[in-house]
């Protein structure tokens, strides 16, 4: 009995945050490729979740994502994040054209829930990865109905944290994101047992 318990699969808050950050990394890169924000020759093939995902080769983007995601992981493990938005804007007019929202909902898990900092879940990693794979597939399928981005675009990652969050160096507070004439499409959601992640794409409806 004791050995069975010892080998039991167990995900902590930190592990859950890691899984989500990994998803965000691949998701954001995939969106960058699929939406054509950077030229296709700037991307490399990688295998993840049983899919071929294209990752940016640009060192600037890599370092940016590394910085943002490491901070995100720290905040996620303390359940301080409500939403992460990847905003695609027109580089010249700064107009927001698309906003990919990753809504985070904290869950209690199925372990001992007396101490909120030591929650655990026994959800299997393969199951979580399968769920993530479905979402990634949907992300690549969105190209068929999202409007064409026919201008030079750029992106930014904005994090909706609690008011009492202390900001580290090089982090700024910014305003809310507003899309003119928005249209929202919810993709599948996945859960690590401790966090539930909903992926929603808001885009500007062309009139």
């Amino acid at each position, binding site marked *: 009995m004791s050995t069975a318990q010892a080998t039991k699969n167990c995900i902590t808050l930190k592990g859950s945050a890691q899984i989500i950050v990994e998803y965000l990394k691949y998701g954001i890169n995939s969106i960058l490729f699929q939406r054509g924000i950077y030229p296709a020759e700037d991307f490399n093939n990688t295998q993840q979740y049983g899919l071929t995902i294209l990752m940016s080769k640009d060192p600037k983007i890599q370092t*940016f994502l590394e910085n943002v995601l490491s901070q995100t992981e720290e905040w996620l493990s303390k359940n301080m994040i409500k939403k992460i938005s990847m905003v695609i804007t027109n580089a010249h007019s700064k107009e927001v054209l698309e906003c990919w*929202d990753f809504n985070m909902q904290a869950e209690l898990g199925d372990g001992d829930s007396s101490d909120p900092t030591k929650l655990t879940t026994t959800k299997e990693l393969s199951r979580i990865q399968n769920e993530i794979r479905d979402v990634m597939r949907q992300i690549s399928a969105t190209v068929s109905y999202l409007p064409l981005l026919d201008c030079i675009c750029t*992106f930014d990652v904005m994090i*909706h944290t*609690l008011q009492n969050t202390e900001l580290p160096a*090089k982090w700024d507070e910014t305003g809310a994101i507003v899309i003119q004439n928005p249209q929202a499409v919810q993709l599948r959601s996945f859960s690590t047992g401790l966090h539930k992640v909903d992926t*929603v794409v808001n885009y500007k409806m062309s009139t």
Partner: protein
Amino acid sequence: MDDIRSSIDDMMDRFNESITHSAPKKLLFNRLSASFDLGASPKKRRLERESPERSLNASATSLNSSANDPLGFLENSKLRTELIETKATVIQLRNEIEQKSREHRKALMLAENKSTALKEQCDITSKKFLDVQDEIKTLQNREMAFKNEASRTTIELNRLKLKHDEAMMKLQREKYLQDEDSRNAHLCINNELAEYRRIAQRSDLELQSTRSELDRLRQRHEEFKARVSGFEELRANHEKQTQSLKVANDRIQELEFEIQSYCDWKEVTKTSQERLASVPDLLAEVERLRSHNKHLNTLIGDKLLLEEQVHDYKTRLDREEGARAEAASLQVKLVHVEQELKEWVKVAQDHCLANTLVSPMALRSRIEQLLKEDIIHVAEKTSSDSDTKHLQTTVRDLEQKCAIYLKNIEDLNIGLKRHKNFKERLQRKLITVSKERDFYKQLVENFDKDMTMSNASVADMTQDMQVRYRMEVLERTVTGYKDMCATLEREIQAMRQQELLNEPAGEGYDSVKKELDTLRLENDRLRRRKEELELEMMHRCLRGDFNMKDLKVVHFNENPAAEAYESSKNMMEKLQAEIERLKRRNKKLEDDQEQRLNETTSTGGMTLNFKEFNQLRAELESANGKMRKMKDCFKAAREEFRDVCYMLLGYRIDRIGANSNYRISSMFAEGPDDYLDISLNESNCLALLESPYSHTFNPPIDQQLAASNFPAFFSALTLELFQRATVTMT
């Protein structure tokens, strides 16, 4: 430290002293207080002080008591009481002493505790003092180290200063050198400029000379033109002459053709005459052959007839056999058909009318009749279907009507009930009214009786009886009034209730319906509103911005968006600057062009320039044509020269590649691969390169070449190859 300890010891001594000195004072005070408390103690002390004497006296008296008994007894008793008194005072004093000693002990204990605590504190402070001393030592060490370091750094600083000064010196020296260099460069540039000026002057001179040359060339060109016109005239004359020559030649040829045709005609007539002479013989032969031919034709016809007959017989035989087989099959078929016919006849008999003749026509007519009936049935069926549908629709309509009627009936029933209720109420009212009437009647009767009693039976009845009777009657009327009141009150209550119940009903079904409709509308409206709000809520949920107050949006400073904005801004600025620059340049160019245009129009040399240009172009074309012709000429001459060399000397020499490599192949070589490669050095020396053919020589080629030079070697080789070729030929 020792000072502190000594001071603490002093304090302790002072404290102990104070304790020891204060003790008697305290005692005094206590005694005073005790004396104050007791009040009677001075007397006692006096007694006490007197008591020894007294006791002595007492003892004396006791001794004397035996002598004088009554006095002695009194004294004795007095002494005894004194003794008891003194004993009591002794005990009291002892207790006081004990108490004081206890207090003294307590004070001592307290003092000791305080002293131990102070000692401990002293130890701690001494320890601390030691620590502080250690720290001071370490700090002093550090200070020393820092001082050393400071001295070292000052030394280093001095060294660096020196270095810096040296570097300064060096740099100044370099600066001087560079200044000199720049001066040199300046001079050089000036020299070069002077040279360039000289070159420019020279080029100007050259330009002038070329211009003069060009003028000369122009003159010569005009001369040539004049010559060309003369030449063209000559050419025209020549062409005329050649044309007349051609015409003459054509005429000569025509005449020659005529002569030839005449000769041919002569030959033809000769041969035809010969043929005419041999005609009768030929006719005889033709007749003979014709007869022979006829005979052969008859023979062939007979043979064909016989063959036809044979074929005819054969076909007849085949047909007869087929007919026989067919007859057998037909017989079988006939039997079948007869059976079938019988069956058909039976069927016809079954189906036709009894008195009619059985025949196919009858059967057909019967079938037609049946079909017609069938059609009629089908038509009837469709009509009945439509009827049923119609009926069903009517039934549905009726059902709907029925439902409406049922509703009406229900409404009417409700109305009826209401009316019944109303009727009941009316009846009840009627009853009450009738009761009232009865009551009033009774009342009237009573009054009448009263009247009669007062009038008629006064005499009969006594006053008392009268009063009693009247009392009873009055009581009855009072109870009747009470009953009436109660019933009326009850009725009023019932009426009120009914009013409350029936008021809405009384207003009617329509008002309720209206209210219901309005309520329904409102319900629908609210439901729609609810759905809208739910949708909005869902949208909000999707966007996740419902409680934005609790959240703040943050982002990383160095994001790609910011960079892109910055770069786009820079690019915009750059582009705008370039636009400005280009605008300026454009303007400048436009101004220049205008100036130039003005210049050209003012000088009027534009057309002249064009003419010159065209002329030069024509010259270039003619020069190119000349060159091409020369090339062709040269190629032809070269080919000829090569062929002649090959034929005369027996070797073909090909130049290979851009370098001066040559391939030499002999006329008498056994194959195209037998060649030798030779290259010309920079020092104009010939050198033989290796080739597959060069390996085939029996004494190595180098030896042969060493023995003789190239022409001798090649002539020897030619001879050898020629001999070999001729030997193989022979």
